[in-house]
């Protein structure tokens, strides 16, 4: 408000007063020109006119002495005669000292050869106005206007005004060619002071920007060049300058001084051009620390609680902030101030006395001038920072960089005490423990390498750039002081061009939160590492037990306003349900201390968690719970919150402050709009850890949830994240986005991969080799017929979609078609089965309703298969013959297969030839297959009688368990089941008791497999387990435990649903896996394989993938291949995704 007073005063001052006023202003000018040279000690007059005690307001006793003293304070070497002459010349003029100095420089100081001197100089005497050193270049504005605007800016404005501007410092100058908009009576004087101002002072940002934050109108409409003296508009500035200047005018962060340097010495008519030197100064205000919490975060989080799905719209304030930021970047671009890359080189240069000459940038010479004029706001703003788009390889580079290998290698190893930790850690796990302990600031417990353990150290925040103060080449400096003296105290300043924040001090990266993101690749033992951390640091050492009880009691008394009780001795581990027991047993395995125990918190088995954790003498060290529990407690809580407004949870997970929270498979929370994610965010603790092998599943924004959970300020605020990561990424400014992500994560992320080498150059993990074989399979007749039928329908559907161009509208229908085809590849019986993982297809199911036709088709092909079979009479005769051959049906139980020499043949598998010889079903199948492949006849192996696959008999049990003969249906098994059975049999023969894992994504297929395998395999030599989402927690652990016990006499087969068991499970007891069907995403398959191919696996791993020949499955393999190369992480762009989907569909049906 002081400033306004100053302005007001001047505005209404009459001519008589102006001399005095001018003098004051001049002194300010002096002060200011000094101030950026001797930055600390002077204070801008403009701001503190009335309050400051700077003695310039005192009336001098002798005007002449005072005048000379003033001159000499500027130019100490000025001789007395010269000074006296100047006094004579100028003491009557309004602006005496300034004019005197101008005159002095132009007439006495020959050495000062300036570029501007080429321009015709105006007579100095007519330079009537003082140089306005005001921070606010729009000094002509009356206070009412300013006041109005102040309102518009809200609290920001007020905050600014409170700030004192201590000093300002030159950063560069531009020559601006302006266009006259008003004719002038006389030519403008060389060196006249001009100012830039907004033509409409209180323009709502919505007028300037559309909802996407893009500029709607030309900024040049709103910026005017004023003659400061006459307070009269004279012209406009070019658009590019206007874009820079407009958002910055009226803020005290940047000060502009405009001086007329060329108008061809004639009066201006409308449309004439004139040249203005625009000196730009950074003021102290810009360097003042802004509190990030001024950002509307509190509002956001409040909103998010109730109203989460709304995307955040940029507020006016944010818009203004952003335009300011872009303007700053553009300005820096224009001024050609480039970040310092080599600090030392510059320092050296300075010491040796060489310095780059700052130059006035002549825009006319700038080739890009015209281009820039026409370019759009964003592009222009980003020119300096624009990078070519980034491909996946670069993304990988980013990942690699994020690992900062060297520092990892050199991490010392912390050996957990044997008193608490039973297992042996691998070397890198010990290093990981060191890192984790350091992240929790437990330096005493971590091994030390003698270096300063503070990792964050002196690292400059990479978002910030270092700049060198340029030499002062401003008009004022050149005209008034001739040469500038650089004070070496401040050679550099720092700017964050992403936020528009400035600092004179080196911005040091600080991450205060405890915890981090352990992102080791799958199978490197994240669980064990975490347990070693927990057991090494089981409770908060800052908290002494006794206070605990006290605190708790206090809570009871004071009630809900009090902080949650602190469970300082407990770590909460949140895991997917399938891992609950695994964590628990791993804990038991690792724990070596009788005082520590773990508790599973699931399904209400703990009545009062709060009491258990905070009010008992020996709370569990670890509480393990599931995402589901956290979510449901949270939902309950938010419901009561809605109703009663009671914020404090009285019981459950949200009622206590944990010492540490660990979320396993942390990518579960990647979508921050899900209830699970929101619930997890609300857990409170002192240390927070995320474990995940795949921090990014689909898009870069997946990381945001991690950052939010870790409470990495300020990135955990969505507005920051959007501004620095999402938006640049969407704008294809990948480099910037990754830079930022890198900067955010580097200190908190630890990622090791299996390929990495330790300090001795050995791989971190040496796993036995794994072999993945694709086995191509032919469909059986029925499958083939159904497949062809469905393929035709699907193709025509896709073709018509492509022709009409609305392929994606029919996307769900096509997905159903594709699903159908994939199902047939597995088993015809799967058709129509509703897969729980594909609920969204139920709609489409109706669209592709073809059950009737399909049934007919299946029936028909079945009939075809039977052709050449028995007639009724023949069948009866064959049965009779065989029955005659064997005296009673008990003999059927002790048959020998002459092909595989198995004895006895499992009655369920017996097949009789017409001639009455028994064989195993599979052996005979194999025989038929071999003979037909060699184009040989089918003869009974025993008697060489001709036989036919359709004229076979088999046994069945009637109600009384006696065995009877019936016709053998020769095409009952789908191709894959047959292939799987062959593999299983072979495996059983060669390596007895070997456990086998069979993966499928269709849980209904698992049901079919379960049935088929149990039927086909003798119960005494094999056992089939099934593990899918329908199992309860208890059943899961029973299944897994039983499966893991090796039994040499029995082949254990685990049918595993990908969705339920794809993550986390440790199945190293098995070394053979079969993939029944391919997945779209290769990483999902890799995940599945890693269930068995991980630490602890001692055997060679063999994986067989069954792929039906010439089918959609083969094409899926190709798409997988493609995904591997293009990468899935780059799916950020919706358009791109659509395009790719269409391509994929085309690939499937070409």
């Amino acid at each position, binding site marked *: 408000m002081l400033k306004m007073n100053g302005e007001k005063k001047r505005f209404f001052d009459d001519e008589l007063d102006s001399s005095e006023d001018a003098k004051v202003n001049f002194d300010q000018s002096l002060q200011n020109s000094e101030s950026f040279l001797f930055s600390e000690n002077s204070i801008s007059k403009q701001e503190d006119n009335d309050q400051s005690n700077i003695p310039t307001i005192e009336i001098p006793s002798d005007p002449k002495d005072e005048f000379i003293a003033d001159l000499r304070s500027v130019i100490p070497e000025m001789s007395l005669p010269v000074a006296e002459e100047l006094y004579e010349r100028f003491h009557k003029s309004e602006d005496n000292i300034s004019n005197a100095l101008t005159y002095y420089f132009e007439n006495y100081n020959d050495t000062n050869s300036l570029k501007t001197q080429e321009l015709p100089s105006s007579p100095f005497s007519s330079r009537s106005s003082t140089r306005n050193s005001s921070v606010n270049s729009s000094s002509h504005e009356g206070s009412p206007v300013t006041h109005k605007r102040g309102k518009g800016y809200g609290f920001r404005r007020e905050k600014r005004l409170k700030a004192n501007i201590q000093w300002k410092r030159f950063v560069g100058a531009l020559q601006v060619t302006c266009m006259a908009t008003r004719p002038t009576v006389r030519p403008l004087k060389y060196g006249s002071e001009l100012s830039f101002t907004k033509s409409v002072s209180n323009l709502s940002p919505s007028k300037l920007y559309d909802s996407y934050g893009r500029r709607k109108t030309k900024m040049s409409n709103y910026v005017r060049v004023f003659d400061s003296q006459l307070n009269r508009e004279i012209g406009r500035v070019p658009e590019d300058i206007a874009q820079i200047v407009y958002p910055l005018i009226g803020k005290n962060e940047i000060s502009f001084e405009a001086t007329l340097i060329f108008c061809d010495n004639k009066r201006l008519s409308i449309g004439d051009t004139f040249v203005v030197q625009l000196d730009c100064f950074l003021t102290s205000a810009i360097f003042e620390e802004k509190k990030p919490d001024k950002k509307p975060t509190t509002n956001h989080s409040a909103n998010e609680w109730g109203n989460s799905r709304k995307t955040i719209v940029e507020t006016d304030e944010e818009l203004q902030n952003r335009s300011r930021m872009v303007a700053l970047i553009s300005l820096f671009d224009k001024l050609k101030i480039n970040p310092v890359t080599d600090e030392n080189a510059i320092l050296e240069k300075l010491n040796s006395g060489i310095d780059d000459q700052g130059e006035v940038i002549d825009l006319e010479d700038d080739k890009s001038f015209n281009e820039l004029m026409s370019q759009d706001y964003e592009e222009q703003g980003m020119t300096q920072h624009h990078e070519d788009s980034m491909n996946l390889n670069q993304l990988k580079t980013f990942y690699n960089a994020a690992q900062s290998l060297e520092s990892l290698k050199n991490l010392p190893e912390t050996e957990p005490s044997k008193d608490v930790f039973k297992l042996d850690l691998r070397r890198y796990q010990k290093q990981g423990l060191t890192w984790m302990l350091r992240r929790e600031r437990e330096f005493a417990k971590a091994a030390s390498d003698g270096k300063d353990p503070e990792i964050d150290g002196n690292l400059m925040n990479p978002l910030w750039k270092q700049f060198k103060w340029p030499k002062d080449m401003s008009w004022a400096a050149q005209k008034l002081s001739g040469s500038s003296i650089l004070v070496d105290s401040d050679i550099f300043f720092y700017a964050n061009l992403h936020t528009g924040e400035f600092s004179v001090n080196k911005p040091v990266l600080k991450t205060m939160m405890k915890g981090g993101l352990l992102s080791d690749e799958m199978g490197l033992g994240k669980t064990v590492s975490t347990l070693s951390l927990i057991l090494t640091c089981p409770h908060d050492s800052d908290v002494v037990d006794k206070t605990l009880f006290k605190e708790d009691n206090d809570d009871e008394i004071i009630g809900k306003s009090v902080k949650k009780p602190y469970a300082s001795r407990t770590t909460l581990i949140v895991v997917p349900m399938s891992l609950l027991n695994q964590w628990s047993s791993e804990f038991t395995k690792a724990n070596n201390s009788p005082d520590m125990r773990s508790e599973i918190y699931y399904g209400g088995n703990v009545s009062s968690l709060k009491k258990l954790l905070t009010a008992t003498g020996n709370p569990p060290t670890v509480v393990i719970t599931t995402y589901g529990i956290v979510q449901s407690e949270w939902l309950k809580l938010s419901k009561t919150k809605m109703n009663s407004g009671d914020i404090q949870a009285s019981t459950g997970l949200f009622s206590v402050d944990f010492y540490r929270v660990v979320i396993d498979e942390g990518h579960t929370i990647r979508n921050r709009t899900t209830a699970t994610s929101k619930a997890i965010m609300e857990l409170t603790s002192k240390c927070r850890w995320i474990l995940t092998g795949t921090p990014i599943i689909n898009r870069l924004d997946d990381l945001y949830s991690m950052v939010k959970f870790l409470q990495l300020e300020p990135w955990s605020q969505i507005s920051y994240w959007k501004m620095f990561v999402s938006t640049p990424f969407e704008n294809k400014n990948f480099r910037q986005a990754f830079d930022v992500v890198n900067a955010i994560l580097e200190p908190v992320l630890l990622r090791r991969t299996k390929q990495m080498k330790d300090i001795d150059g050995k791989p971190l993990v040496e796993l036995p080799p794994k072999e993945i074989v694709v086995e191509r399979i032919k469909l059986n007749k029925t499958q083939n017929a159904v497949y062809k039928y469905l393929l035709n329908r699907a193709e025509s559907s896709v073709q018509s979609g492509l022709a009409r161009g609305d392929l994606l509208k029919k996307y769900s229908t096509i997905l159903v078609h594709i699903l159908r085809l994939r199902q047939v590849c597995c088993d015809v019986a799967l058709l129509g089965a509703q897969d729980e993982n594909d609920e969204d297809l139920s709609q489409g199911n109706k669209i592709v309703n073809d059950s009737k036709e399909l049934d007919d088709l299946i029936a028909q092909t079945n009939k075809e298969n039977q052709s050449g079979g028995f007639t009724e009479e023949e069948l009866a005769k064959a049965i009779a013959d065989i029955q005659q051959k064997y005296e009673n049906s008990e003999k059927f139980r002790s048959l020998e297969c*002459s*092909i*595989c*020499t*198995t004895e006895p043949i499992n009655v369920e598998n017996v097949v009789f030839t017409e001639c009455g010889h028994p064989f195993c079903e599979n*052996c005979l199948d*194999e*025989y038929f297959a*071999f*003979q037909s492949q060699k184009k040989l006849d089918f*003869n*009974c*192996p*025993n008697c*060489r009688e001709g036989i036919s696959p359709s004229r076979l008999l088999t046994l069945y049990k009637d109600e009384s368990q006696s065995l009877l003969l019936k016709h053998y249906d020769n095409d009952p098994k789908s191709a894959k089941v047959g292939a799987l059975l062959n593999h299983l049999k*072979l495996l059983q*023969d*060669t*390596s007895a008791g070997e456990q086998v894992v069979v993966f499928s994504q269709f849980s209904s297929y698992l049901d079919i497999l379960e049935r088929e395998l149990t039927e086909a395999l003798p119960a005494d030599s094999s056992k089939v387990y099934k593990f899918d989402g329908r199992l309860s927690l208890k059943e899961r652990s029973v299944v897994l435990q039983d499966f893991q016990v090796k039994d040499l006499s029995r082949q254990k087969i685990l049918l595993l649903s990908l969705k339920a068991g794809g993550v986390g499970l440790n199945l190293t007891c098995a070394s053979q896996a079969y993939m029944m069907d391919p997945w779209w995403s290769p990483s999902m398959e890799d995940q599945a394989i890693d269930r068995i191919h991980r630490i602890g696996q001692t055997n060679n791993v063999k994986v067989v993938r069954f792929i039906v020949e010439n089918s959609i499955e083969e094409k899926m393999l190709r798409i997988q291949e493609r995904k591997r190369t293009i990468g899935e992480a780059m799916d950020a762009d919706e358009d791109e995704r659509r395009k790719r989907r269409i391509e994929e569909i085309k690939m499937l049906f070409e």
Partner: protein
Amino acid sequence: MASLPKRIIKETERLISDPVPGITAEPHDDNLRYFNVTVEGPTQSPYENGIFKLELYLPDDYPMEAPKVRFLTKIYHPNIDRLGRICLDVLKTNWSPALQIRTVLLSIQALLASPNPNDPLANDVAEDWIKNEEAAKAKAREWTQLYAKKVDDN
């Protein structure tokens, strides 16, 4: 190498535990599908008192495919050529997966007992055999003495 089916293991075990008289078959240590075989010349045949070495190999498709058998010991026989290849129906077209190593070797032994010059493999031998059976048999005996003599010491 494909893993060993149960049937082969079973057969091998039985060949060792319950050998056929006059026949031995032992698998190689490094390849269990490869057998060293000896067959004694049947009594009352020109090959009596001879011990004939053979090699037997079970192909991957065994038992769908017949084993490959060859004489290593030189033998004068119309159905066995100079390379030791054997002309025997069960090894070719009449193979059936119900047959086993044991049955194949018995068939070979039987072939020694009753040569069949009408379905010859070694044509010159067969001609001799038809022209002058006694002379041929004498030559066979001679060869047996020469090449397949039982070495008692070893």
